[in-house]
């Protein structure tokens, strides 16, 4: 699937994460800002990539501002951002969830 428009999900509040997806042509790039990047940076990126992969998204630029979100929150926010970017908010892909 191709991301044709930018989409945002999540907030900047404690225990949440804000995810911005933008169209790109050169693969998946993740730009992560987090206080716990050293400890959990790889894991956060892994969670996001897994969601993107399940939607078969190969090209996208992801900006992440993490405020200490748990894994499931990161997953949920990424799914929301993807559904918004693909304009399929009303038709959730249950197999991904």
């Amino acid at each position, binding site marked *: 699937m191709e991301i044709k*428009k*930018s*989409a*945002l999900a999540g*907030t*900047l*509040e*404690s225990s949440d994460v*804000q995810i*911005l997806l*933008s169209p790109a042509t050169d693969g998946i790039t993740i730009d992560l*800002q987090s206080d716990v990047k050293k400890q959990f940076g790889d894991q956060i990126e892994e969670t996001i990539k897994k969601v993107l992969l399940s939607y078969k998204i190969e090209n996208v*630029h992801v*900006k992440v*501002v993490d*405020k200490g979100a748990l894994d499931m929150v990161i997953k949920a926010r990424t799914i929301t951002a993807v559904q918004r970017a693909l304009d399929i908010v009303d038709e959730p892909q249950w197999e991904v969830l």
Partner: protein
Amino acid sequence: MPEIESLDLNKQSVKIKWQNFLKKRGISNFADNEITNIDTTIGLFEANSLIATGSIAGNVIKYVAVENETNESKGALFNKIVSALVSCLANQGIFHIFVFTKPEYSKTFEHVGFSLLATSEKGVILEKGMPDINSYLMAINASSKLENKKIASIVMNANPFTKGHRFLVEQAALENDLVYVFVVEQDVSLFTTNERVKLVKQGVSDLTNVKVVLGGPYMVSFVTFPAYFINSPIDIIDYQTTLDAQIFKNWVVPQLKITSRYLGCEPFSKTTKRYNEILQQQLSDVISIKIIERKMIDAQIISATKIRLAIKETDLLLIKELVPLTTFKFIKNNLNILQERIQKGQKINGN
């Protein structure tokens, strides 16, 4: 947990409360041209009193302030307000956001994903989202073969492109290996951005080492330098031109390996004259600044202002004398449209 509410500044009582809250926290500029372009203002209340607020004007976040003594921490309130503003902008399809703030709040914004573009004593400018300055500069696609070459830059509104502009570009093209001509992207002039870019491209098409690109929101735009378009006092011009020059210095110069910037000497506009002075102050330690005397034709200085006046007065002879053939043809073929724009209130005596 307080909820976000929108504030209607058209209601005098709300506006006064809001202003008092901001004044107490050191924000005191409520000039009309600052207030009138606000699209949305939101607030958080606790026991009926305002404890946090923020506003949006276009793609700029303004007037953010947070109460110190509440049940919630100051940081949590700040993050909540900024989140709400960012989501509100995203709903409008705006994903690239700017904020102007005092230097002491720079870190607070950086903590929620903003990155610092430029600093001056009075204020800083930060951006968040995509496309950002990195993607803007990447898209210009600087050739890697340009190590140790002479690379010039010119920023122009070219409203419209005259023989004066042509002369400036020619000089730079002669003295350098490559010339970037950045055309102001803000679409508020008599000639639209598309028209201006087209006329610049046509006017320099024979110069093989000139590359014409748009200046994005980073060079003389409503974001970095609104005073260029709106008559403003000198201290505001100084502050804005400093930020504009700093963005050029910190980002554009290193990324595109620019070695000089060419400026047209400015005998008329107070704003542009000051801009030139500030550019010299700010940039001359990293690149060379070349000020080129204005080209004269029959003892008269060429200026785009003059052309616009001649359009209004249908003085095609004068126009023909002062602009390249490509610009002249365009003006001749579109005279009615241009005059209609002037009649509809498009200002022609500014920049």
